[in-house]
């Protein structure tokens, strides 16, 4: 185990031949993906193609039936035991998760805590920072997402765009090696999408590893180093945005893009 040494440095994420199914329904059918440090990867695809499940497998919110995920070479949620994989205890998995930021479609802020406490809670609870340092960091991060004046508010007193920016600050507070975004703008009114995308764009420029599931094709073209197109639980095609978005090789990709563009 090399736990605790990755903070603050952009991480490599490797997904190896991941299969996931619920009963007879196959959600992921052998996904391989490598995300290099500092790279911004945007995952596109029709609904039900397994994009969100893939993200949730990366931070082990979902357990893959076959295959595994590693962060900087360290297996997530499992350990090697001879030539087999054994599940780790929940405590170790929680520690691993604290190095992977996750931003939800529905924000999932803690409604009974103030904005400041939402951001400061995780570094204190996981023992990474003392209370005073955590509050200082939370203020700094909230300033970075443009919400320095909202520290004392409760989440439900904020707009959707503001809530999502708090959620991003909350994910950043653990100084994760990679941040996963699960359709971060899908629950927002159109005029609020821009403020959230601006914050994500700012992060992309700062060299953090990002994996983003989104339907914003224009945004993907603008910030992605790589675009991954998924359908039916598989990666159909991947490459730089200019290649995948403008000159797709696969029929399925062409078909999807012709519908959404």
């Amino acid at each position, binding site marked *: 185990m090399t736990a605790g040494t990755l903070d603050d440095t952009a991480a490599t994420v490797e997904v190896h031949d991941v299969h996931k199914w619920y009963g007879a329904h196959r959600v992921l059918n052998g996904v391989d993906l490598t995300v290099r440090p500092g790279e911004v990867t945007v995952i596109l695809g029709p609904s039900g193609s397994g994009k969100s499940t893939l993200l949730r497998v990366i*931070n082990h*919110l979902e357990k893959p039936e076959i295959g595994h995920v590693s962060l900087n070479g360290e297996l997530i949620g499992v350990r090697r035991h001879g030539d087999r994989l054994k599940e780790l205890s*929940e*405590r170790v998995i*929680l*520690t*691993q*998760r*604290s*190095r*992977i930021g*996750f931003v*939800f479609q*529905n924000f*999932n*802020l*803690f*409604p*009974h*805590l*103030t904005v400041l406490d939402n951001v400061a*809670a*995780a570094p204190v*609870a*996981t023992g990474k920072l003392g209370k005073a340092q955590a509050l200082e960091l939370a203020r700094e991060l909230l300033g970075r997402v443009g919400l320095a004046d909202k520290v004392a508010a*409760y*989440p*439900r*007193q904020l707009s959707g765009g503001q809530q999502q920016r708090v959620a991003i600050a*909350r*994910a950043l507070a*653990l100084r994760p090696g990679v941040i996963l975004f699960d359709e971060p703008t899908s629950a927002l009114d159109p005029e609020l999408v821009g403020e959230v995308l601006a914050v994500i764009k700012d992060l992309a420029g700062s060299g953090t590893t990002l994996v983003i599931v989104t339907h914003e094709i224009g945004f993907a073209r603008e910030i992605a180093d790589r675009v991954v197109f998924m359908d039916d639980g598989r990666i159909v095609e991947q490459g730089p945005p200019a290649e995948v978005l403008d000159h797709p090789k696969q029929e399925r990709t062409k078909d999807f893009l012709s519908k959404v563009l």
Partner: protein
Amino acid sequence: MSESPGVAVSAEQAPPAEAIPRPDDPAAPADQKPLAAQRVLPIRRPGRWIATAVVLVVVAQIIHGLATNPFYQWDRFGYWFLRPTILDGLLITLEVTLYSAVLGLVGGILLALARLSRSPVLRAVSWVYIWLFRSVPLIVVLLFLYNFSALYATLSLGIPFGPAFFTFDESRLATDMVVAVIGLSLNEAAYAAEVVRGGILSVDQGQHEAASALGLPKRYQFAKIVFPQALRSITPNYVNQLIGLIKGTSLVFYVSLLDLFGSVQSMGSTYPGDIVPLLLVATVWYLILTSVVSVVQFYVERYYARGATRTLPPTPLQKLRAGVTDLRARIRKEAAV
């Protein structure tokens, strides 16, 4: 009570033809405000006034009956209300309630966690416990416990059929108070478990996911994220339980513990002529206890509403102030018109 708003409106518009002229009325004085700038008169509701009058008469009659009917013997009520025997009983009631409420809630939380756990054994044990104690009447549980010391003279903790680590002499341990508290707590825990479980289930799944995704330790997730949000729906249900418990304590009389009801009963058998005022004494004390609990409930609920609503509900004092201010403003307005 049938109302006809249409009639009320037309009746309102018709008579003061001088005061509110129609805009197309050529005879309208030039200094009259245009129709758009005039205050809208509220609709009259005669039905509501009649209903109010009827209810007030009935209430007045009930109060009059209560005050003047010699059957209630209010002088005897005054004599008994603060008697030491009654107050001793009240103290017992409060003690039994307090201990059982705390033990019952702690037990309920543990049972709820067991029922929500991933271990099938814990789930089954919790389910059976809740099933059993919700099925057996409290009085049966109490009498069972009361006779328990006769069935088992000593109680020991150890390996079944093996050595015992601790041995209690039960006849000394099981005072009436202990029997009452254990009985009520066993019963209370079964109901509290369902209240707590319902509260935990009412917390959005996204909250569990967010807490997990942040890597918050399991204990922290429950204590700081899930449980405080669950308390919002646990509070009103548990207070309901608590009020039931306060009244349920009157059953401890049957295990020879003289609580409020018990003292009233025993005084009533000594002074049969005073049984009605004595029952009134018990009634008023139970009313007072329930009222105190309700007031506490209001403030506890308000505390846990932080963040759940954009603005907190006003306290009664704030409501009163706002009401007075509003009334003054209306009187001033009426006076100005």
